[in-house]
């Protein structure tokens, strides 16, 4: 079984490029060039250098001793939270900004939900001196004020998405519309492993540095490159895609994907796409998505702004359908509890997204000898207000 994208842009039956003709030249230009550009020695050199000196890679693979003792198994945390800007998002934006420059683009657009990808995009635009426009739902702008301020300080223009439900999916629609209106000079930096081919593959490749590092780091710790499990939370699924990438074809490594159940999978307020979603088309790709019987895309819910996307990347839809990955759903309450537990046991305040991945240890029993690598995709600073309100701190 192949879990990577095929030459037509599909992962099994998922993926493709379901885009209006107006976007065809942009997407086609990218499709024809992305692998070529990524293979250029000068590109690789610049990308690796920036990841090292600017992002601060490699991010540590940390053996969480007290957490491991509590759950009687061996838990390693991949510390993406220690990256510059506080999450894995910057691995992708560094890669894409270098791609945009080589394609001769002078204007960058992006969508953002909680603002993490927006900040990571504004950061690399400042670094490269390129114009940056970030689309963000009007409602998200109101509830993520610190990140809006960060983007502005970094020189980006933040444009409110006023259509539809005024959240992430609408911000994505607005970014796509901007790209339709500016087809020549603009590159769209999509923040997750979603969108029309080649985006899911390109984003996955930029994020694959995560599992590339896990391999040699785990070898140092445990004498083997392969853990028994790799675990990551999934919204669109970019940190997960990067965490799984080099293990997709290692059958002895089990993959666990953790979705946000919100108030509960059956509560009507959830973002557990693998359970609630059905095959359909969202933002240019065929994948699993939450929709009405009539094919209208619905609004998901999670306490974590980074996980409340109504779809999931096409690679993950394929991993789900083929059974390669085990999908688990974690509620708001379970995630918040796991987040606080990590603070107390390990002195690390995780992003609420990452807390979902940590919460599986309450649900699933691992063997004492199992090595479980969890992607700690982001730090919790951005979520302080949420933690304060939730725990009445």
């Amino acid at each position, binding site marked *: 079984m192949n879990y990577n994208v095929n030459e037509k842009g599909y992962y099994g039956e998922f993926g493709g490029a379901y885009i209006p003709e107006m976007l065809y030249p942009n997407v086609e230009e990218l499709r024809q060039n992305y692998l070529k550009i990524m293979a250029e020695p000068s590109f690789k050199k610049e990308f690796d250098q920036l990841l090292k000196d600017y992002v601060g890679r490699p991010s540590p693979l940390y053996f969480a001793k007290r957490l491991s003792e509590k759950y009687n198994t061996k838990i390693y945390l991949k510390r993406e939270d220690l990256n510059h800007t506080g999450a894995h998002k910057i691995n992708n934006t560094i890669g894409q900004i270098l791609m945009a420059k080589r394609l001769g683009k002078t204007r960058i657009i992006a969508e953002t939900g909680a603002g993490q990808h927006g900040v990571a995009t504004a950061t690399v635009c400042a670094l490269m001196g390129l114009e940056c426009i970030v689309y963000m739902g009007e409602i998200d702008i109101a509830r993520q004020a610190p990140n809006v301020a960060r983007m502005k300080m970094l020189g980006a223009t933040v444009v409110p998405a006023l259509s539809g439900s005024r959240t992430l999916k609408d911000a994505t*629609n607005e970014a796509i519309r901007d790209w339709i209106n500016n087809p020549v000079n603009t590159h769209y930096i999509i923040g997750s492993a979603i969108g029309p081919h080649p985006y899911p593959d390109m984003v996955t490749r930029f994020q694959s540095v995560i599992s590339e590092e896990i391999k040699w780091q785990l070898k140092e710790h445990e004498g083997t490159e392969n853990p028994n499990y790799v675990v990551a939370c999934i919204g669109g699924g970019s940190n997960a895609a990067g965490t799984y990438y080099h293990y997709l074809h290692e059958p002895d490594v089990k993959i666990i994907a953790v979705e946000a159940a919100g108030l509960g999978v059956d509560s009507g307020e959830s973002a557990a796409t693998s359970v609630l979603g059905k095959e359909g*088309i969202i*933002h240019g790709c065929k994948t699993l998505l939450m929709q009405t019987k009539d*094919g209208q895309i619905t609004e998901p819910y999670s306490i974590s702004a980074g996980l409340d996307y109504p779809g999931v990347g096409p690679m993950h839809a394929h991993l789900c359908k083929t059974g390669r990955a085990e999908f688990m759903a974690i509620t708001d309450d379970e995630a918040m509890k796991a987040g606080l537990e990590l603070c107390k046991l390990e002195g690390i305040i995780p992003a609420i997204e990452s807390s979902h991945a940590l919460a599986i240890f309450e649900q699933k029993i691992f063997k004492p000898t199992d090595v479980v690598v969890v992607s700690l995709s982001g730090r919790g600073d951005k979520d302080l207000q949420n933690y304060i309100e939730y725990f009445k701190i």
Partner: protein
Amino acid sequence: MNRINKKLQEDKKLLSIYFTAGYPSLTDTVTIIQNLEKSGVDMIEIGLPFSDPLADGPTIQASSTQALKNGMTTEVLFNQLKDIRKTVSIPLIIMGYFNPMLQYGVEAFCKKCQEIGIDGLIIPDLPVDVYNETYKATFEKYGLINIFLITPQTSVERIRFIDSISNGFIYMVSSASVTGSQSGFGDEQTSYFKRIADMNLKNPQVIGFGISDNTTFTQATQYAKGAIIGSAFIKHLSTKPVSSINDFVNFIVK
């Protein structure tokens, strides 16, 4: 012969109007279609509303959101249209995004269109190659003409390919834009219109996006067989009653 092909043979410039089904109110669909025909419109695009219309600007987005709120669904639209051919004879095209059709079932959707007397479909996010490899046979089985878009950025080679698999007209997007974002045509657009006209394609071209009044309609149809108006008509409907459609059409064709 399909009504679209028959209409394209008429010796006149064609006016096609787009509206969003279920807007301004849920039950306006049939009245709007009838009034458009009575006003002398040549062809109608019935918009099946979608929650996330990527290729549309604010006007059509807002009308789609409203139509969905009003309760429009694929099933409701088909029910409203079931007797439409008793009163309306001009070509009718359904324009919508692919996901609602996919959920209804592409074959079931096409079959229903044929039963009702729909002549063609415009599906902006169904790519040319996917249509050609997967759905062409189904569309043809039910006598439906699929209409493709081209833009100023579409390569000559791709235009030729699109022309080769089309059997109605080609929808020329006037400029790189979403719907409703232009006012008036400049030199760049007229030279694009001329460039396409000079390609002598087998399918006639109809220009859409940016047509909002008599001037832009006349400019566009100088180079193409017809023109499509969407956002300007929706704007009209947002403030004026459905009974005033005649005024709008007269304002365009004079």
